[in-house]
């Protein structure tokens, strides 16, 4: 079976899929969390906390866009 199926390729595929699939979804969720908290905290007139939430959201969005860029590079490569 090890000859028929390249075990290392299979394991690498599984590991990369879990890291990329779960990772992208989580960082995008963090971006949405940041946006949602920013809206709530701004309405509550807590500008410092709102700015912190916005920063977290922007970081999450940047990580998501970075992951998409990596995906495009993998596809083209």
């Amino acid at each position, binding site marked *: 079976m090890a000859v028929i199926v*390249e075990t290392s390729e299979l394991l690498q595929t599984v590991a*990369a899929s879990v890291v990329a*699939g*779960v990772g992208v979804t989580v960082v995008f*969720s963090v971006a*949405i969390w940041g946006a*949602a908290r920013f*809206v709530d905290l701004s309405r509550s007139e807590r500008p410092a906390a709102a700015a912190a939430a916005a920063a977290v959201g922007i970081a999450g969005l940047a990580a998501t866009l970075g992951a998409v860029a990596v995906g*495009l590079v993998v*596809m083209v490569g």
Partner: protein
Amino acid sequence: MSADVIMVIVVATALAFDFTNGFHDTANVVATSISTRAAKPSTAIAIAALLNFAGAFISISVAATVANDVVDAGVITPTVVFAGLIGAIAWNLITWWFALPSSSSHALIGGVVGSAVIASGFDAVLADGVIGKVLIPAIVAPLLAFAVAGIAIGLVYRIVGRQRPGTVTRGFRYGQLVSGGLLALAHGTNDAQKTMGVITLALIANGSLGADADPPFWVIVSAATAIALGTYSGGWRIIRTTGTRIIKMDAAQGFSAQGAGAAVILSSTHFGFPLSTTHVINGGVMGAGAGKRLSAVRWGVAGNIMVAWLLTLPAAAAIGGATYAVTEIFGSGAVGPVIVSVIALAASAMLFNRRSQQGAPLPAS
């Protein structure tokens, strides 16, 4: 003259298969975006068609591997390819009729294996290739996507579960536009190449190209156009199954399913372990449902889909083998393929006509 007529028929049949691949597998790309209202149906399909077209130009590295890995290249003739394509088209139309998302790639491989077996016996089949490149990936793909989407949606609900639903839903709908675009691009990259590979193999078998030739530019353009037109025509029946019948999906689940699907397909492409986009995205949809709660998945529908997956290889092989046997009745010339093509066209027209009389299964929204 006879060989040229067969080649024209093979190329036309391959492009017809590519068209069915486009409308059959459109569901993989757009179903979740449509069902969560991330995009209007017409917009989602137009974007998917465009990205499928673009994806076909990105890489041609796997274009000639379709039949090489599963049957002995020495037994491939244009008529074997033709019969295999008819097997694949027929199975695509049967599963479309029953609104079941099944793998067009497996149908193509099954069809070619069946026709090669009838042409040259079971020795023509490369068992290691069938197991390693088709059967094992068929098991791995849905399970992996199921697990990734299931874990992802569990974490998503923990992170955003207490936030305002409106903001969260809007955010994930925007995210789905990107994840759906990635899926469409990956689909075009993978699936259009298979048709390019089949046409190139037939051209090589006919002596029109050298043994190690890359797909000619006209083959790349015509395959990209056929899959894009097929995608644009939309496979509404299968879109409804994937988008609404397996689970009732919210935007976060749609994003998790598409994100898991894109990650699994891109990872498998990168590490050279090819997986079916159909198996991946449907496994992802089931995982996104089960991650919320197991009873959220309509397991009866999921079971029907899995039965279709199990039947794809043997059924397409049986039709491909039977088609080859019929063409051989008329000798090795062009008469057999011409007669089979006319019958196949008439049967397809009847099928589409009956379905159109029954109305569209998906209400426009």
